[in-house]
């Protein structure tokens, strides 16, 4: 076979280009895959770095770190119970307030409001979610706290302060700042998040289901509780957990209004502290091994709590996603 020089040249060029394409392909695959693995390892890296930093604190206090109420930089005696307590209490207050309100807004947006109204309100809620947390903190400190101290706190104290069981919750000076204020500001912060998720998952309910219920004579409220909520159970719960994750880890908004006192008290009007606000306030001043190790140990605690909550939230949202045919939410 006599090789035509032109055909041979074309062949050579083609082989070279196919070869080059393969190399470039492998390179591109490798580089993108490498960055994907980098993202994968980020979470583990955070965990490891916090654990290494926290080790001295655990070595000194052992498991007792989690149940000790001490916080004494002078004698290097640290315990996590007070900040953990504050974190959990403020997050619970936030959820108790935010869930019904978010549910109401999502109900309004998906079942009640006409499109010309629901669209701008939706946008407004989403803009509220974009406002940085430090603004909520400032608003809480300069606007909400004085209002709260002047109106709500005295009223609550005169109304409930003497009741036998709940009375203990409403003790303390009406300063405007404290655990309950932090909980309320957190609620305001997470309402846009929970609302946006609830609205999105409520919209996944097939109209046929709702219309069948209406045809049977159900009221809007009955359709919501008997059709919409059962259908979106997993997604709604996922959205609430996501809100909880945010409330647990939020720093700036809380730091402004919680009062930063290492006291364990049932009274919600008293100043308290949370894990994140303790870290934010004290970390840069914490020179000396055990002090910063104790703060890093607090960070590690927060990491473990929030990652568990967020993982559960994502698993629930994933379940809804499968149910609604692969559509991703949030």
């Amino acid at each position, binding site marked *: 076979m006599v090789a035509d020089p032109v055909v041979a040249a074309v062949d050579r060029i083609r082989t070279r280009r196919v070869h080059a*394409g393969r190399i*470039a*392909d492998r390179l*591109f*695959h490798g*580089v*993108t*895959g490498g*960055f*994907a693995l980098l*993202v*994968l390892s980020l*979470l583990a*890296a*955070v965990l490891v*770095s*916090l654990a*290494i*930093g926290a080790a001295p604190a655990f070595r000194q206090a052992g498991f007792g770190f989690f149940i000790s109420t001490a916080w004494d930089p002078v004698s290097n005696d640290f315990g996590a119970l007070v900040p953990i307590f504050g974190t959990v209490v403020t997050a619970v207050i936030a959820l108790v307030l935010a869930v*019904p*309100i978010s549910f*109401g*807004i999502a*109900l*309004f*947006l998906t079942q009640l409001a006409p499109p010309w109204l629901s669209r701008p*309100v939706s946008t407004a809620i989403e803009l*509220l979610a974009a*406002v*940085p947390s*430090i*603004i*909520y903190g*400032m*608003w809480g*400190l*300069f*606007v909400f706290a004085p209002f709260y101290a002047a109106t709500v706190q005295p009223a609550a104290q005169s109304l409930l302060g003497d009741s036998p069981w709940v009375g203990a919750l409403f003790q303390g000076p009406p300063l405007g700042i404290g655990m309950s204020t932090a909980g309320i500001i957190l609620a305001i912060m997470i309402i846009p998040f929970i*609302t946006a998720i609830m609205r999105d998952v409520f919209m996944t309910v097939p109209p046929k289901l709702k219309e069948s219920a209406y045809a049977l004579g159900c*009221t*809007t*409220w009955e359709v919501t509780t008997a059709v919409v909520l059962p259908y979106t159970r997993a997604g709604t719960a996922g959205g609430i957990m996501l809100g909880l994750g*945010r409330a647990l*880890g*939020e*720093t*700036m908004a809380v*730091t*402004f209004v919680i009062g930063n006192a290492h006291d364990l008290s049932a009274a919600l009007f008293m100043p308290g502290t949370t894990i*994140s606000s303790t*870290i934010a306030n004290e*970390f*840069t001043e914490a020179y000396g091994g055990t002090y910063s190790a104790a703060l*890093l140990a607090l*960070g590690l605690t927060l990491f473990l709590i*929030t990652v568990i909550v*967020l*993982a559960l939230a*994502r698993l629930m949202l*994933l379940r809804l996603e499968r149910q609604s045919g692969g559509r991703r939410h949030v």
Partner: protein
Amino acid sequence: MSDRTLDPNRYLWRRLTNGFFLCAAIAVTALGLVILASILITLIGRGFAALSPQLFSQPTPPPGNDGGLSNAILGSVLMTMLATLIGTPVGVLAGTWLAEYGRGTLVAATVRFINDILLSAPSILIGLFIYQVVVVPLGHFSGWAGAIALAVILIPVVVRTTEDMLLLVPDRLREAAAALGAPYWRVIVSISYRSARTGILTGVLLGIARIAGETAPLLFTALNNQFQSLDLNGPMANLPVVIFQFAMSPYDDWQRLAWAGALLITVAILVFSVTARIVLRTRDQTR
């Protein structure tokens, strides 16, 4: 049974319940809007009152003196830009792998899951992480550490949107390009990226909006600096930390500056997120 269905009281009760809860839904929506209005009015009222040209020309003052926020604005812009430059390629490439190569694999599902957790992980922990891996080894706070911390917060946002947007590109387009003999990297660069361009850009804009107001991760990475500085190896002033310190201070003039900074930062963030929305909407309409 039959008298139950005919009981007029029961019907009335159902209607009353319905009316009560629907009114409650309207009331809480109104409450939400009132809070939003209160935040915006406070911000605009106090922020505008403190706006002045010297805000942009003078650095942060000691209490009682005249001054502006120029060092903080400069530092914030610089660190946000750097974080975007670092985080965007990482996020886009990782998102590309998820959407193009990893589809349906267990590794991709894991990466997506971890990324979703990172997306809502407390930002203060990212700050502690960067403190441990950058600030401690170098021995000092620095603008670089701040930028890296912000990049770590930006990455998950970009990964998520890049993947979502690439998955919206129809596979038929990819197959058509492959049938013409294009290698896969070429398909991704010339077909997938080009179709998903605006979507990916939106992700970056949303990421910038997310990091521009982040305070907690900068507290122990960039710290703060009283003076105008372009030195990324030293502590660097930035708007969020200055706002935090000035707002918590007892001095009136510092608090005024804090409100001015808060207004600036919120306006910047709203501009970024509204632009992202408009970009997405116009793209959806041209489709």
